[in-house]
């Protein structure tokens, strides 16, 4: 069955062609190796030596235009819309989460922030090479002592003439050892709480900046996650993104885009669990019939379908709003919460459908479960999303307009 056939209210023919292209790429160039890559991350840690597969794949993704899919051509992008970003994330995560994590940090958190808040000079210097995949980008907000409570961060950025001096540590940073640039958030005025925070684009190679890899993750083992250490890193003021004191707003706006990619990816993960379950349920026979004939197996499949379609609709609605230039914080966080929790439940059911074989990495479903668990924590925990939705509903959370909103999609302008 074609699960993406009835989305004509959101998607056009170009999205279908894009979906097929990304799916073919991921199936041909990643799927045959993913089990080995995932295992190597577990057995040998995630230092650069075992991550040798990442740069070539990212280079291929850059060549194909996947890293700047929803950016205007004049900024090196493919000129497609925000729904195309969702389609790319779905199809990449369907093969493995590490591919979509790249899009989340590189495109969602970093590139789209530079697109939204950057000066023209910053866009030329960073956005264009990032969109083309010539520079890889990461994002540094989380610290050892602050995740959800981002305003309690301890990294500082002290003004010194035309520069800022950055100090602090960021952790749980995807592509920590691989990215060329990082959008980091630090306190320029520690006394002002969330109003004393600013955003900076820093480059690997700036003296004082070092990175390390984390080991022993439960999932996304084919990727590279680590930390950044900033010791008196001198950053020119020209690298500050937005105004001083705007960093918290920039970080939150970035999450509107990062969360969107996570939600879309989680939808792709539900699709993967469903595809695997449908295949296995028709091949495996017990009591003389395919297990797809047993009602309790049917039940698990039907719930997966329900989660898949609801997640997809929530994601596409948020993408549609981005296309219109509408603020979509509530809709995106709802999609992220629903899709990530659903992807974990679906992977869990997929393992159950596979029986004992689901417990072995001969089949991909155990990897889906391990990968899905992270998304319930990162880019806004499930608990945070639950509180947000209640506060939105109660009118306790208003989104005042931002000084710079994410640009609406404009087909003519973006394709020229």
């Amino acid at each position, binding site marked *: 069955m074609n699960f993406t056939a009835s989305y004509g209210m959101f998607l056009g*023919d*170009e999205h*279908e062609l894009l979906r097929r*292209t990304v799916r073919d790429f991921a199936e041909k160039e990643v799927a045959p190796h993913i089990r080995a890559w995932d295992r190597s991350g577990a057995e040998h840690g995630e230092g650069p030596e075992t991550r040798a597969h990442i740069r070539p794949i990212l280079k291929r993704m850059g060549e194909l235009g996947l890293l700047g899919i929803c950016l205007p051509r004049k900024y090196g992008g493919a000129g497609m819309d925000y729904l195309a970003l969702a389609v790319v994330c779905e199809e990449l995560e369907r093969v493995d989460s590490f591919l979509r994590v790249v899009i989340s940090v590189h495109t969602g958190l970093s590139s789209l922030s530079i697109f939204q808040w950057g000066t023209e000079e910053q866009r030329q210097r960073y956005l264009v090479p990032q969109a083309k995949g010539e520079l890889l980008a990461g994002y540094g907000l989380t610290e050892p002592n602050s995740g959800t409570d981002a305003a309690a961060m301890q990294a500082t950025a002290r003004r010194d003439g035309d520069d800022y001096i950055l100090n602090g540590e960021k952790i749980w940073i995807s592509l920590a050892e691989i990215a060329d640039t990082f959008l980091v958030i630090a306190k320029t005025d520690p006394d002002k709480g969330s109003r004393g925070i600013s955003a900076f684009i820093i480059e690997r190679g700036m003296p004082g900046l070092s990175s390390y890899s984390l080991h022993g993750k439960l999932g996304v083992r084919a990727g590279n996650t680590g930390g950044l250490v900033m010791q008196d890193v001198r950053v020119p003021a020209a690298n500050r993104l937005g105004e001083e004191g705007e960093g918290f707003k920039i970080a939150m706006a970035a999450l509107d885009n990062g969360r969107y990619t996570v939600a879309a990816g989680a939808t792709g993960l539900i699709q993967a669990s469903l595809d695997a379950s449908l295949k296995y349920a028709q091949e495996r026979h017990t009591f003389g019939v395919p297990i797809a004939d047993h009602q309790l197996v049917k039940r698990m499949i039907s719930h997966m379908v329900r989660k898949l379609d609801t997640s997809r609709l929530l994601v596409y609605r948020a993408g549609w709003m981005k296309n219109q230039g509408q603020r979509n914080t509530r809709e995106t966080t709802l999609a992220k919460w629903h899709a990530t929790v659903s992807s974990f439940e679906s992977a869990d059911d997929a393992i159950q459908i596979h029986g004992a074989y689901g417990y072995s990495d001969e089949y991909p479903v155990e990897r889906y479960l391990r990968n899905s668990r992270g998304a319930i924590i990162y880019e806004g925990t499930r608990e945070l999303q639950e509180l947000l939705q209640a506060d939105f509903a109660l009118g306790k959370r208003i989104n005042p307009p931002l000084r710079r909103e994410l640009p609406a999609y404009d*087909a003519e302008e973006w394709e020229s």
Partner: protein
Amino acid sequence: MHIVVCMKQVPRDNSVKLNADLSINADGIEKIINLFDEYAVEEGIAWNEKHGGKLTVLSLGSADWTEQIRRALAMGATDSLLLSDPAFAGVDTLGSARVVAAAIRKLGDVDLVLTGRNSTDDESGAFAPALARSLGWPQLTYVGKVQDVNPAAKTIVVDRSLEAVIETVSSPLPAVVSVIKDINSPRYPSLLKIKRVAKIDPPVWGAADLGISASDLTPAATLSTRAPAPPRPKGELIAGGDAASKVSALVNKLLENQVI
């Protein structure tokens, strides 16, 4: 230079059903560009990049082939053409060659036709030879490498991968060339082109445009029956006390059946 690539849309796999009238029912199976034709599209794009001019992807099918045609355009074809008509339904290999030949004659300026060695559904492998014959052009089949295309001198040099040898052949243009797997590495559709080609509807020529009459399309052979392959018979489990006795029982069976 004008290169035409003949491209067929086929089901991704052959788990098809049979309709009551013995025709094939591929509903529900994903449709793709015929594998060998995809290599032909890539080869055409490569030579079009080298010599300029037009690369037309031509299909004999129906409107629901448009997605694959757009895919070829997103890969890099410059033009497209769909031959579609109710009269073409059920056309056989010879008939389709006649129809496509009429289209190529109508295009008028074609220097080279590329196509795959066979389709993965009918697998006759006869389309390219029949097309060459209809056009009166040389046919170069099982081509594993196109060494050179010279539009000014109107020549082409290819390597044909035959069973025991590789044969290097030079031929005047225009010619019909059919290619084999791994002649090249087909590129992905360019994401930059996807948005542009998504709105393109290929021009459509029907039987009247081509001057094709019903008699040109009458199948040369009539289909008397079509049946799925018989199911694989259940295997036989060799019984025995221990591994050694089972092995000797198996060896005896293989000898009896003259397998070894």
